[in-house]
């Protein structure tokens, strides 16, 4: 099973009610959000979501006038003990793979981190981690 996850990146203006407009829109269309991260500059930001139905979410956002695109990421399971996250970073550093960003997600069962690596190095990163015995999630 592919370890690549599709993350939806949405352009948002930094203004009141913007985030809730998007989350309300998705909720009212029965789309659940399993990870959420916001990276922002002074007057705009990029909202990054992993959702239950990509195509439907994209269509709804297009219709509502939001600009969005898919970005390939992967999720790594990180257990609750010292050095667990560090072992992932070390495995990537050893191969000189550059991390564009990473953020944590959690659901009831496990802790995990989303990693964004450039498209060029993405498959290499996944293979590296797998051969180091690190668990990559097929869904989050």
């Amino acid at each position, binding site marked *: 099973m592919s370890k690549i996850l599709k993350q939806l990146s949405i352009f948002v203006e930094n203004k009141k009610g913007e985030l809730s407009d998007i989350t309300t829109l998705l909720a009212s269309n029965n789309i659940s959000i399993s990870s959420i991260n916001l990276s922002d500059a002074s*007057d705009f930001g*990029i909202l990054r979501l992993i959702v239950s139905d990509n195509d439907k979410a994209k269509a709804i956002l297009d219709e509502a006038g939001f*600009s969005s*695109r898919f970005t390939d990421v992967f999720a790594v399971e990180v257990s609750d003990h010292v050095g667990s996250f560090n072992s992932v970073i070390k495995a990537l550093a050893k191969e000189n793979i550059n991390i564009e960003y990473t953020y944590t997600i959690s659901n009831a069962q496990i802790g995990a981190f989303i990693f964004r690596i450039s498209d060029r190095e993405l498959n290499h990163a996944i293979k590296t981690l797998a051969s180091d015995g690190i668990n990559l999630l097929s869904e989050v």
Partner: protein
Amino acid sequence: MWNKIEGESREKISQTQLSRLQDTVTRVYELTPFYKEKFDELDINPKDITCLQDIQKLPFTKKQDLRNHYPFGLFTVPMSEVVRVHSSSGTTGKPTVVGYTQADMDVWDEVMARVYTMAGATAKDVVHNAYGYGLFTGGLGFDSGAKKIGATTIPASSGFTDRQIMLMKDFNATILAATPSFALHMYETAKKSGSDYLKDFKLKSGVFGAEPTSDGLKEEVSRVWGIDYHEVYGLSEIIGPGVSSNCKHSKLLHINEDHFYPEIVDHKTGKVLPDGERGELVITSLTKQALPIIRYRTGDITSLHREPCGCGRTMVRMESIVGRVDDMIIVNGVNVYPSQVEHVIANTEGVTLNYQIIADKKGHLDKIDILVEVNDDVLSDSVAEMEKIKKDIQHSLANNLYINANVKLVEPRSIERSMGKAVRVVDKRV
């Protein structure tokens, strides 16, 4: 060529112009108190017009003069002879009202037929007319010209974009008549609906106008639809669309100068400028019956060119409108035209063309914000890359136009976009 006069010798055209100018001047002097008063003040009599250069002795007419005589005060025929009235949107105060006799309508049909012919249209074509029908001259002007050449006309008018696209495809439209911004909006809508637009549509050329348009936007419309772009210039005070348009040989627009006499003046001094120099376009109607107009200040900035054209037409050509005298904003002493800003944005890789300029005061200084819409094509997952787009545009504006603007990226469709016209400048200082 629709009419052989379009390729007549200059001598013949000048003769026609002079006799028509003399008739027009006599007509307004005898029939309009407004003009009689103005002529008398300057001590001018219609008999003083003995050559075309004498036109420079005549007074100008301004938009405010039309407003002051709202609605029909400058008409030179009784209302029983007026068969049509149009009106331009009155964003400030009263609208301007214009009237046409049947003879005026015939002239309008004639010049619009020339426009369509220049765009390669014939009786075999299907014209999808997406200009708004109503008081605005666009809808009915492009309608009557299409009828004149015998083409099939689809009076789609504006709005209902999804349905328009369906009809354009199903009716096999070959010519699109629309504002450029609406043409681009139609493309975006077609793309979104997933229709295989280039394969499905039969369009070959388009007649576009009614709003200031940069080369970038023209190329964009031409490229996305895969059609020839023909620009049409006009204004209701003169006739509506049909004053001038370009043939396939160049981007310069042939003026139908047997009906509309053009001059370029310095917009501050009113002095006539030589060919090739940019200034305000001034037009005198040569054949209008209901509302003849002398030296009308269009507010549009352009230049005139008399070099021969490959198409064989001998009528003078004008550059596509560079800007508006009143749209031009002065930011900390620097003249800025929206079209220049549009050009800079278009040249900055990957940024959409929809924008709005907002001028405001910060203390005693002017400050300028430029909103630029982000779309899926330029969106990056990286905030740094988005910041770079913003900085690139700012640098480009500073380097090319000498203005320090704060560029703000905004969501798609957040800037008011026209059915009619896009709002490009908001000046909060006035």
